[in-house]
């Protein structure tokens, strides 16, 4: 664990501090994550770590056995989204606005992919996240990412819906 504060920018306690053993639910509700065999390794304030086990169904280059870049994209997107949840003090829905990925080196065949993401800034409307994907050493990344997410509380979504209906 890092010594990151257990509270959000507003001083309220973080949601993940209250989840306890229900943390695994964060991935269970995502059908495509289940389909990929994605696993939640750990969550802590503002950070998440996930894994996709090597699977021949996910190969992108049949000549080398290397996994498709899209698997890395999906893993970084999902890990970043959970890192945003790890920075929330009340539940809000998230939508990815932008995801940028640099591919530093090819993944190696037959090895699992791990991603870590850090939500380093969260405002009322937007969350900013950095991430990295690697085999076992975070300092030797296969890919790094930066992403922004739009946040919407349930009440603001209801208001938007009502405005749409009135228009």
């Amino acid at each position: 664990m890092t010594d990151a504060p257990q509270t959000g920018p507003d001083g309220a306690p973080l949601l993940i501090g209250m989840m306890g053993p229900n943390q695994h639910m964060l991935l269970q509700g995502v059908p495509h994550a289940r389909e990929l065999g994605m696993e939640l390794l750990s969550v802590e304030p503002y950070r998440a770590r996930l894994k996709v086990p090597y699977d021949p169904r996910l190969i992108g280059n049949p000549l080398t056995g290397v996994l498709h870049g899209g698997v890395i994209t999906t893993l970084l997107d999902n890990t970043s989204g959970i890192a945003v949840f790890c920075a929330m003090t009340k539940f809000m829905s998230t939508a990815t606005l932008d995801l940028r990925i640099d591919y530093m080196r090819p993944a190696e065949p037959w090895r699992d992919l791990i991603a870590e993401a850090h939500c380093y800034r969260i405002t009322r409307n937007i969350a900013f996240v950095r991430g990295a994907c690697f085999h076992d050493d975070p300092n030797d990344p296969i890919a790094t990412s930066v992403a922004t997410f739009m946040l919407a509380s349930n009440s603001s979504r209801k208001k938007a819906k009502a405005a749409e209906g009135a228009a």
Partner: protein
Amino acid sequence: MTGLPSLADLRRMGDITQLLQAIPYIQFLGVTGERNGEQVTLTLRYSPQIIGNPTLPALHGGVIGAFLETTAIVQLVVSTETDRLPKPVDIGIDYLRTGRPLDTYAAATITKHGRRVANVRAEAWQEDRSRPIAALHGHFLMSGD
């Protein structure tokens, strides 16, 4: 061995189906495609397995990114003389609208093709091509390491 036909052969045959079928992950996602002259259009068939948010419901953002990246690579194979699969160097994806539980289409444009690196833009849409759900721009390494 793996049944991946040579890329030069594929270009000559003018058929991208064999290329798509040779790549396991493309089959896993449920992507098919057609080629009209030089222009490739890929289809991501809707299935419940590609949902990311069941409440909305919405397609997984990662799948849309992966689909756009695949479209860029297939277009590069068709339009250039490359003898191996282009590798992504960097990609940026803008998410413009929710991906609804429908079939999704994508097409790519090669903005610049240098000797080693190509710059590509791709767009994904559902019912209305003029209302894209996501756009990608990226650089792809065509040769060398």
